[in-house]
């Protein structure tokens, strides 16, 4: 049986028909064709699939599409400004060599934005701990941690 879902994705109203078991990440990747959100595991461990649901980081592989009905979703595709200017978190990943193969990066960036929002001024140890649910095989995390701390500082400075 199929169900209708409606949600806002990256500022646009979208709708579609899904099965009860359709995962949110499947809806995003296969129905909406937004393939920036990645799938790296099948056990909610890697965080390649992190998106924001109503402004909060979520693993989209661990939510049903139906659970997102009526919600506002932000994926990596919606993070940059309309004119293409990178979000400070994306720019910081670039500045600090926070990615190599790039597969973990969408989830890392979305998680980084969430960490910056929740824990302004978080120290290195805190950021590392907050990344518990995001695995990167390439970078050794050093550039990622530096990027999140740098972007976080810039995002808060911009707000102040």
């Amino acid at each position: 049986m199929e169900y209708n879902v409606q949600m806002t994705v990256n500022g646009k109203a979208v709708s579609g028909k899904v099965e009860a078991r359709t995962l949110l990440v499947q809806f995003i990747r296969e129905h909406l064709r937004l393939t920036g959100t990645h799938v790296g595991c099948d056990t909610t461990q890697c965080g390649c699939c992190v998106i924001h649901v109503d402004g909060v980081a979520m693993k989209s592989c661990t939510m049903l599409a139906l659970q997102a009905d009526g919600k506002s979703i932000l994926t990596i595709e919606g993070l940059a400004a309309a004119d293409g200017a990178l979000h400070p978190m994306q720019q910081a990943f670039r500045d600090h060599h926070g990615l190599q193969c790039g597969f973990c990066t969408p989830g890392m960036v979305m998680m980084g934005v969430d960490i910056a929002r929740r824990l302004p001024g978080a120290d290195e140890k805190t950021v590392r701990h907050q990344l518990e649910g995001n695995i990167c095989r390439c970078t050794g995390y050093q550039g990622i941690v530096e990027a999140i701390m740098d972007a976080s500082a810039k995002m808060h400075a911009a707000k102040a």
Partner: protein
Amino acid sequence: MLPAAVSSVDALKADSPKVWPEFGTNEVVHWEYGEAAKVETLLRSAHRVVKVDLVNNRIAPAPMEPRVVAAKYDAAEGRLTVWSPTQGGRRIQMMLARTLLKMAPDKVRVISIDTGGGFGVRSKMFPETAMVAYAARQLGRPVKWLGDRAETFVSDYHGRDQINHAQMGLDRDGKAFVLKVETLLNVGAYLSENGLRLPMEGGGRIIPCGYHIPDFYFSVKPTFTNTVCTDTYRGAGRPEANYLMERLMDKAAETYGLPREEIRRRNFIKPSQFPYKTHLGFVIDSGDFAGTMEMALEHSNWAAFEERRGRSAARGKLRGIGLAFFIEGAGSRPVEGMRVRFEDNGDVSVIAGTYSHGQGHATVYSQLVHEFLGVDYDKVRLINGDTGTSPEVSNGTFGSRSSMVGGGGVKRACDAIIVKGKKIAARLLQSDATRVTFEAGVFRAQTSSVTMADVAAAARDPNKLPDGMAPGLDEYVVYENDTENFPNGAHVAEIEVDPETGVVEILNYVAVDDCGVVLNPFIVHGQIYGGIAQGIGQALTENIVYDAEGQLLSGTFMDYGMPRAGHFSHIDARFNAMPAKTNELGVKGAGEAGCCGAPPAIVSAVVDALGSYGIKHIDMPLSPERVWRAIQESRVNKAA
């Protein structure tokens, strides 16, 4: 349930189940290097002999992108296109075309777009690739297979899985002179592409790993078991070799009552010994092994460690410090095609036989073209990863080779472009080619000048060319070198063990690497950090485990311990750059250094922390459980 042989030790027992009963044994082959009898005699003559028995744990390479293959067949044209993450598609194309599907190679195209991590495992041909391609051709329909993580665990080749028994004989002064290494390699149930040769060719070529030990016997027994095949994983034989040498050196230090740095000092190959031929005939051209180690000791404040140990003890923690020296062999199979092409719009394309999947080739090649030809950095484009456009010779990216073969290829192509460019410029400037100079993108003769862009444009116009010159300024070179290069380094890890939980926390990590000339420090550091993370993963958290029936128990990220951000501290990475003398850029590969240095440095540190318990060694991974158990056992032994 059929009986199974899971470990190489068990598989070699007479009564073990045979993976291939028709062979009557699980021993694939017994390779030897050196003279066994002579080495035995020398060992008997030694002042002291130190021995280690080591398990080099089985690892899942685990690129974050699970394996995937899609294929499409165009029946009218007889063309097959395959999309899959690889480390360079040419080999896959050739195997599909020639060996498996019996098609003309130019009818098979393999495309890799943004491969999500390679680490050796993505350079391989897998059965699913062949099956998907075959199905697409048979059905005339696009076919796609997407492995989930669980499937990737049981079908991607694994890495390491060696058992090493090593003995080293030393003289009165702690100078080693004889080495014997016996290695069992678990190859899995089939022969993978390269797995078999890793201990001997991968590791053996660098043994004794930066130390001068004149006599060496090496025995390698690759063994079939009922497990997933093993093959190249970042380092591919060199981490195993360095690990056993460094455990031997620590053992020797303990036996002689010498500091760990001192036993190494006494045994290093000295700068005056370069070029130095290793036992297997590879020639190390350069290095400053002792100096590199001194830098690591200095930056880790090694000398003042005991005071820090005391501070931790006051908090109930066991602090330890560990040292590892290592040497690598990088730039394997040093042949690669590289093309530099001038586009109509003024861009310059580098069409590379290498394939960047996170190593930053677009950055580094652009930087090089900018440096050599004076072309704007932003105007240089990298084209790679598609056998439809890549050069005829395209071996791909593996074995820390791209800086030397790719960078060297760019250099040679640019040199040829400048030579040809001078001839064209001479004609434009009405001068003689021998009097034309080239610097920063400008050709000059006396007071007049033309730019590289002017010359590239003129090169398209036969009227503007010297007589007999073929149009175009593009160059294609097949880079060849007769040697690889030998990166090396010294790593110091400082850790704390919580004796109540067995948890190891890394407090400080200093890596001093000699990667030769550093083309881009940002990118080389990135490679070092990533390699260290994988080495720390092997040392602390990662382990592929099978039960006695051959069932994979560590088949998801829930039970296979991928290292996370919180497992590390900030890594202090530095260089002691000794330019390689055997390639024009002076580079030494950086990709696999980290995972050679980290495992012995971490194990050395943990054993140092547990010294008061009399613990001399724990096999990797040093998980909280293993460390805690070792502590409990030693308490029981002490009480008894």
